[in-house]
């Protein structure tokens, strides 16, 4: 996985809508989820299209440590197929004539059957691999689109408001699943959203965009709350004890020689048993830590 430096300009003359110019420079740190937050029409989706090569930039540069994707000064502009991105479109763009497995294999390649199977298991679609995308529920379709975008081991995963059309409960569930997948696979991603709670929940690096200009960039706590609390706690651990009351369950988890206790709600705890491997993730500002 690699980080990117982006500095891009593009003007859209007055056509069907108002004239618009994008002039945005920001960084995409390696292995993190960068969230671009801004109101509708601020140019968020255009940035994703420019990153994917679906839109041609006028000036600027998109580069990572190993490769330049776009450099107007050198006349370099890699085609979408040469950029190695995974793109999760707002409307998902699942191929309707291909089954769940075929959608994944389209990206992964037929030789990578094991990887496709693994992604289907990780996104809990293993039992649905022969189904058509039309037969899936909203959440399953979302997970399939995410698995398909990841199947090509992209250098950069692009997520265009992927949760905007979902209800609150499903959103919450999918935030957790995206976080878990991110911990497991460690991909570099850029997600755009106009939902501040969503941006704060998922961002490890945040960019605020307004009228085509970056107005703030940095750790999400700093960008959204004005506080320097960028440290996050994230660890793999094993559950060694569970105590429940009516609402919460107190898990005792062990990571190496360290033991932690964490509260989870009973619904989530219902899926966990003593001995399970779990990921404990929290923002430093939200964490509850007990001395054992």
């Amino acid at each position, binding site marked *: 996985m690699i980080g990117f430096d982006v500095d891009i300009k593009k003007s859209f003359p007055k056509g069907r809508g108002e004239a618009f110019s994008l002039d945005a420079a920001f960084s995409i740190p390696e292995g993190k989820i960068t969230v671009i937050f801004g109101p509708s029409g601020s140019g968020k989706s255009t940035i994703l299209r420019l990153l*994917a*090569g*679906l839109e041609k930039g006028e000036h600027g540069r998109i580069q990572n440590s190993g490769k330049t994707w776009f450099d107007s000064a050198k006349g370099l502009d890699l*085609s*979408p*197929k*040469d*950029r*190695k*991105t*995974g*793109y999760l*479109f707002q*409307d998902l*763009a699942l*191929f*309707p*004539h291909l089954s769940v497995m075929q959608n994944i294999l*389209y*990206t992964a390649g037929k030789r990578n059957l094991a990887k496709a199977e693994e992604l289907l298991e990780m996104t809990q679609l293993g039992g649905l691999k022969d189904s058509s995308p039309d037969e899936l529920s909203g959440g399953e379709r979302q997970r399939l689109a995410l698995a*398909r975008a990841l199947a*090509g081991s992209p250098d950069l995963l*692009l997520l265009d408001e992927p949760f905007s059309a979902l209800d609150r409960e499903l959103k919450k569930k999918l935030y957790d699943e995206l976080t878990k997948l991110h911990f497991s696979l460690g991909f570099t991603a850029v997600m755009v959203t106009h939902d501040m709670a969503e941006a704060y929940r998922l961002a490890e690096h945040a960019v605020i965009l307004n009228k085509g200009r970056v107005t703030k960039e940095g750790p999400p706590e700093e960008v959204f709350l004005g506080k320097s609390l960028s440290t996050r706690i994230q660890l793999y651990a094993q559950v060694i004890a569970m105590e429940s009351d009516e609402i919460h369950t107190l898990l005792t988890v062990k990571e190496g020689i360290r033991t932690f206790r964490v509260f989870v709600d009973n619904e989530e705890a219902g899926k966990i048993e003593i001995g399970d491997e779990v990921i404990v993730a929290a923002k430093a500002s939200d964490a509850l830590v007990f001395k054992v």
Partner: protein
Amino acid sequence: MDVFQPIALSLKLSLVTTLLLFLFGIPLSYWLSVTCLKVKPLIEAVVALPIVLPPTVLGFYILLAIGSNGPLGKLFEALFDQGLAFSFAGLVFGSFFYSLPFAIQPIQSAFESVDRRLVEASWTMGKSKFETFIRIIIPLSKRGLITGGVLSFAHTMGEFGVVLMVGGNIPGVTKVASIAIYDEVQAMNYSGANIISLALLLLSFSVLLIVYMFNRKVVRAA
């Protein structure tokens, strides 16, 4: 009276014409479906002309072009040492232009209806434009392709004016079923005309029925 020869010739002409229309029509339809060039309406109007032109007008100009003094006729003669007019190749040439809109329009419309996002999604997955065309656009345009093929085939089976102008009435070479029917009627041989007409009717109906049944299956599967 040989009933089978004109029908076999009509079938051969329809198959060859449909094949050629697919070969040239698919790339042209795709180009028309994606191009933003100002010349697009001009090309579309030229392609659609056979729908509104009397077949004799189209046949007349094709005959001028492929006749022994026409530019295409001269070129063909230089290349193959034989004339293009009043030959099976000339019939194919005339039928190609006569049926062109019936192939292009449904296929172009099918290509245009493929969701652009699916195409872009394929590009971002490392697929070339050609691979995306073969694996995404063509399968999703199946219905339009079938419709274009059926219309081209049926239209060529039933053509009369253009083939008469371009091919004349040479038995075994250019005398297709529709001309054979006309000949039998002129000769007052109504029973002969009836046999060929009935055969043509049943054949055309069977082809259309099979294709529409298949098309229904495709739509259900989709």
